[in-house]
């Protein structure tokens, strides 16, 4: 297993390198540069060029890339062109917020999605299967930002149960932390829960038709052992795949949800830096998110090996 994990980690290194290259190239494809923003609102073309030189943006791209990579390898994510703040500090402030939001969203969507999927798979064709399948269709179709606004109106403004905006760090206590995350995590994780429910249902239906399940039933095994031991584990592989993909997608989805709930996470930071053409922050964001996705993929690969020993051997 250790060799398997080591191979996957080594395989991630060239991916990370290629992503840094692409991220750097993409930044140059974005029209306009930070000098236009930094030069101020009424700046002339000459003034913008002066500022461009001051900021070092006139240097060849390759020089800027290697300077950035050199700093990156020494653990320095750079400094914001606009605010002068350390990007590492900005990331340290933002990562816990987005990580909290994503983890809570993943947790509830995994639990609820799996339960719905197993239930509908076991009772396929029943009225409750059809009702829950319709619900998951709704979950897939509903835009997260719209759901977020509805949740705020209902649970914050009308019932006053949860805060409408803001974030409380875990150091303030578990309850304040969770109360600020429930609504955004619910809005963010709805599509994921629906997707997991769909995949779990399909997996369960598929597994239930296998001979070994028929054999287990014929042996007289109790239903909870048939479901718990023989069905869910074998139905889990496609679910894990979806889970991995959704985990990465949730980071992207957090950009909008963080705006609606005024959460100071990576999404807010990324949006602001893109609008300001603050390249070093954009690049730091891409590196951090890439590492996050690579870690998720690694965990998914490891879980494949757990669920299916053939993967381990290959």
């Amino acid at each position: 297993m250790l060799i398997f994990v080591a191979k996957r980690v080594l395989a991630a290194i060239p991916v990370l390198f290629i992503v840094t290259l692409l991220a750097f190239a993409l930044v140059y494809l974005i029209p306009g540069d930070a000098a236009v923003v930094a030069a101020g609102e009424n700046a002339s073309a000459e003034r913008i060029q002066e500022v461009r030189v001051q900021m070092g943006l006139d240097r060849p791209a390759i020089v800027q890339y290697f300077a950035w990579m050199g700093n990156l390898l020494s653990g320095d994510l750079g400094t914001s062109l606009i605010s002068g703040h350390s990007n590492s500090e900005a990331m340290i402030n933002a990562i816990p917020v987005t990580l909290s939001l994503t983890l809570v969203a993943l947790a509830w969507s995994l639990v609820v999605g799996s339960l719905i999927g197993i239930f509908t798979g076991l009772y396929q064709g029943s009225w409750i299967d059809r009702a829950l399948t319709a619900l998951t269709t709704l979950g897939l179709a509903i835009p997260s930002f719209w759901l977020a606004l509805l949740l705020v109106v209902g649970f914050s403004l009308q019932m006053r149960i949860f805060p409408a905006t803001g974030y409380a760090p875990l150091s303030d206590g578990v309850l304040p932390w969770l109360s600020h995350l429930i609504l955004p995590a619910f809005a963010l994780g709805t599509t994921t829960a629906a997707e997991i429910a769909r995949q779990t249902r399909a997996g369960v239906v598929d597994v239930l038709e296998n001979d070994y399940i028929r054999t287990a039933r014929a042996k007289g095994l109790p239903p909870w052992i048939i479901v718990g031991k023989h069905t869910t584990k074998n139905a889990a592989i496609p679910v894990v795949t979806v889970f991995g993909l959704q985990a990465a997608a949730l980071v992207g989805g957090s950009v909008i949800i963080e705006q609606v709930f005024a959460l100071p996470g990576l999404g807010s930071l990324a949006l602001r830096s893109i609008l300001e053409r603050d390249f070093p922050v954009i690049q730091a964001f891409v590196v951090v998110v890439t590492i996050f996705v690579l870690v998720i993929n690694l965990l998914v690969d490891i879980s494949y090996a757990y669920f299916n020993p053939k993967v381990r051997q290959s």
Partner: protein
Amino acid sequence: MRVSPSLRAPLRAAAVLSAALVLASCSSIAPDSAPPGTDDDATANLEATVTYGGVVTPSSLDPHKGVTENDLPFLRYIYDTLTTVDETGAPEPFLAESWELAEDGSTFTMTMREGATFVDGAAVDAAAVAANFERMLNDPDSTVAYVLAPIVESAEVVDELTVQLNLIGPGGALPTLLASRAGMMVSPAGLEDPESLATTPLGAGAFALNNAVPGSRYSLERRDDYWDEDAYRYKNLEYLIQVDTATRLNALQAGESTLTAVVGPQKDEAEAADLSTWQSAGASLGFTRFSMNTQRSEFEDKRVRQAMNAAVNREQIAETLYSGQCQPGAQPFPEGYFAHSDALDDAAWSTYDPDLAEELLADAGLADGFSFTAVVPSLSIYQNVAQVMQSNFAEVGITMELEVMDATQARQNFVNGSADALVGTYGGGTDPGLYATSAYSPNSGDNPGGLTTPNMAELIAGTQRSIDIADRKAAYEDLMAEVFEMGPAQIVICHAIGVHAGQPFVHDFDQSGPLGASQGMRDMWVSQ
């Protein structure tokens, strides 16, 4: 991306929401009515925490290195300026108690307020002010050097509280310029460690920054030793960054904030939720505009520019897209502001008159109209304004193609001369000269076509010769007369009208004057 010429009704709501991003930081001129629900028996809670829902993240906490005027509302809590301005834009004492421009215009001498200190306890004296000017003028990263360098050569200490600026340009605008970023003084300790200012601001303002999560939350505490004990009668200020307009109102309705800017129908929504609202009676210095490159398309001809002014239905834009919270007008400075020309008859430019527009186009030999392409930032408010104008122009035979793109790229394309026209906004500032120079001087940022007149440079300089506000007003009247005789290359659409909503226990909030909500926050108090 090209958009066909049509009006789209559903755009209205989106336009109003987007307007907050663009115009929320703008200020207002005329006084407002008292807030509803004011309790005459209420007393100020000096230990209160006020939570303000802000829009813009400060680009830097170092006032001499920030890049946008949108920073200033926040920075004013931390950094007092040398001067301030009243509701008409006239300068008033602040850190500087008095000032004098030498008769020959060679020096500008300020006497500092006795007893004012920086947050670290250092005195705001002549030496500190001179050191600040030294930095603003000579630091290669200074973003205020371009404002000061054409006027000030150096600063020297006369005595403990008197500082003299040695001038190389007309100094009449200094009292209004110093009410803005260029007048924000940094403690000498901060000047010695300038890198730290980006995160640890050291100003002479009423508040000390205790904690900051950049882009999210700034926690400030009022200084006990602040020189003006009547200002900011509350203990703590939590400044939240809430970019989304709906989020800001949600936070207010949920009781999570005390006060925030609202736009369009949000005012009615706030009132329906038993919140107080304040709308300024006059317009702000910020405005929506349509800029033309006079070396492109048919814009070199004054008759064409005038025709386009007459073709634009400003009232329709103000009512439809801004819910009436925008005051139509053709002049760049609103009524009530000292630089507005009361003497100028601008009716032929400001009145919606499609017939006149067609006549002018026929006179210019363009009876069959003409086509051009305007670059439009991808924010919905700009697109909506552009589409209404597109429809207006189509009525008189002008075809306006829209090229929607990122805001920075749109601005860049216009400034470098590769775009015919640009739809956008102007944020305003405490000195009108910055706009005049940018819009009417050749090859400046807002005038890539170089449209000017032989007298223009002299007239702009004339607005900066005297510190007497009556003299400056007269000079601006002359300048505006020349501008409209020339035919400006910018169509001013309407000036924003600021609106705030807050909790019913907020008292004496008045966003009048060019400083807008910043002044309101200074004067207000809360009873809970």
